[in-house]
């Protein structure tokens, strides 16, 4: 586990830019907007990313950058009045957006599992843990009660819940936050999905539990060769538990690269700014917290030009008028910037 907040990651990911073959999940040019009373919020604008089997993709960004909407779009659970206005989402080659309702129900839980942010409120308070499992196991795998019960116990055991045989009969409120998150992970994995989407899975937990949960997820992903999307605002988590990273801002991708490349040679000014914001325990020179001046925008108009331009120290006129496309700087390292930071002469930390 890498030390968080220590600058460039020090050799962490247990796999290389993992995965193989065609992407498990591919999002092409996705746009999602929320038409509201007084305005329309364009939560996603032309978003593209992909995840392969066995690969962990981190999606990083501030609040409002569109990370959660991305996850919701894949599950086709964007809350109304939001809707997908253009783009494609391909899961194992099939267009998710074109699936029927019934088919989508199969996909959810059966092929794609989701781990939400708030474990305290994500379980049905009036049914037992066992019932939670039996529901999905009979639905997706057609298991009988007896079989389901057995599976449930195994699942709980595999996520490290002690004494699963008794726990199974309890109600969610009897478990702690960390335990509930484990149960949720177990539930998400129970039907052997091929893709896991975790939306800030540890934000609501305290730090020691965070570490355990993340390790647990790493193990599960590795042992089942899943694809995983890890949405977070915490760069440390990304450094320690992801193979590739996507940096989002204002509903668009700013930069995407392998973990090594991103932390070693961040090229988008936003990424650079983000990394500078992480307080370093070892640097004694400055005592001031670095920030990126300004606030992220509420995207209510589709404008041309780079969305980061107002806050970018390197912004030029071109940046304000023309939208920079996402282009490769190096193999597997894409940046959406007219004047990316040149990391050629990288200074050692």
């Amino acid at each position, binding site marked *: 586990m890498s030390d968080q907040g220590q600058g460039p990651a020090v050799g962490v990911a247990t796999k290389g830019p993992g995965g193989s073959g065609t992407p498990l999940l591919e999002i092409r040019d996705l746009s999602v907007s929320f038409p509201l009373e007084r305005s329309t919020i364009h939560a996603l604008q032309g978003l593209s990313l992909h995840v392969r089997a066995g690969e962990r993709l981190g999606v990083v960004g501030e609040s409002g950058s569109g990370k959660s909407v991305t996850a919701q779009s894949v599950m086709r659970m964007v809350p109304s009045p939001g809707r997908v206005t253009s783009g494609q989402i391909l899961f194992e080659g099939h267009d998710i957006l074109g699936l029927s309702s019934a088919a989508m129900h199969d996909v959810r839980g059966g092929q794609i599992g989701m781990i939400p942010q708030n474990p305290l409120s994500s379980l049905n308070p009036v049914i037992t843990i066992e019932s939670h499992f039996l529901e999905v196991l009979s639905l997706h795998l057609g298991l009988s009660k007896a079989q389901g019960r057995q599976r449930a116990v195994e699942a709980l055991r595999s996520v490290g819940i002690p004494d699963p045989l008794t726990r199974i009969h309890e109600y969610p409120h009897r478990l702690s936050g960390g335990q509930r998150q484990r149960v949720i992970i177990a539930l998400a994995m129970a039907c052997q999905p091929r893709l896991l989407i975790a939306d800030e899975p540890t934000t609501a937990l305290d730090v020691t539990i965070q570490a355990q949960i993340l390790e647990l997820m790493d193990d599960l992903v590795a042992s089942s060769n899943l694809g995983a999307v890890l949405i977070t605002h915490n760069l440390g988590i990304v450094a320690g538990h992801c193979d590739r990273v996507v940096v989002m801002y204002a509903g668009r991708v700013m930069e995407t690269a392998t973990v090594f490349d991103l932390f070693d040679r961040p090229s988008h000014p936003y990424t*650079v700014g983000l*990394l500078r914001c992480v307080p370093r325990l070892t640097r004694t020179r400055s005592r001031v917290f670095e920030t990126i001046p300004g606030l992220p925008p509420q995207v209510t108009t589709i404008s041309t030009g780079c969305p980061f331009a*107002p*806050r970018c120290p390197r912004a030029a006129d071109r940046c304000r008028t023309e939208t920079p496309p996402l282009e490769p700087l190096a193999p597997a390292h894409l940046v959406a910037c007219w004047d990316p930071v040149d*990391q050629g002469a990288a200074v050692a930390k």
Partner: protein
Amino acid sequence: MTAVPVAAGPPVPTAARRSSDSFWHAAWYRYRQNRLALVAGVVAVFILLVGILAPWIAPHSDTATDLSSVLAGASWHHWLGTDQIGRDTLTRAIWGDRTSMTVAIGAPVVGLVIGLPLGILAGWWGGVFDWVTLRLYELFQMVPTILAALLFIIVFGVNVWKLALFIGITLWVGFSRLARAQYLALRERDFVHAARALGAPSWRITLVHILPNAVGPIIVFFVQQIPYVIFTAAGFSFLGLGIQDPLADWGKMINDSVTYLPIDALLVLVPIGCIGLACLSFSFLGDGLRDALDPTSR
């Protein structure tokens, strides 16, 4: 990592944001969106105004009887007809508005005045005070409100103010409970802790800091009691126990005119219509206020 100069300049203006709405602005905006509530609000204000201005806008005298036209239908002279002793129905309805509204607003005020302080104290201090208050709730809730008011009337007699008082007394528990729940919840909020840490005295915290935050649901509750009071007061008059002659309120008008229904339906329909209009408008007003002040309740 290379050093990238982060411009140390003046704060960069962000994309345009609406100036932050205060709670009341936002509530007013939401309220305006709700057409039904808007209409209801206008009607409710109209009804109140009629009551206040009654002495000046009633076309005829309240007690003048015109025995030459008894139980007449609508006419130019008497827009809504006359009753069995020749009094102008429109006038009676207007004065009835005044009476009914006095009770309808007065009773919740009484309930508020009694219930709010008790609820605040129970919610804020807790402990024994709270325990006693809870027992009081149980005690008062055992006797259904209508029966209690009835008893009061029988024992102490009735006039407009007494009616408002008695019905009001039966309402205090509702206000008190609400206030208590609000204060119990708000007591734990950070801004209260901050105020205490700064040494603010209790009375200041409860009145100046917490009250403006608690007041939303209380206002809604207040407005919601109005139709209930109208019902109840009219009900007593309907039974002959409410307002007495020569005063009128709508319930009494119904009661008086029932026997003449076959001859003069208008006489009965006017007070019924008034009650219906008042109840509906205050009900929808209450709903609109609730939706505006608490956006989480859809």
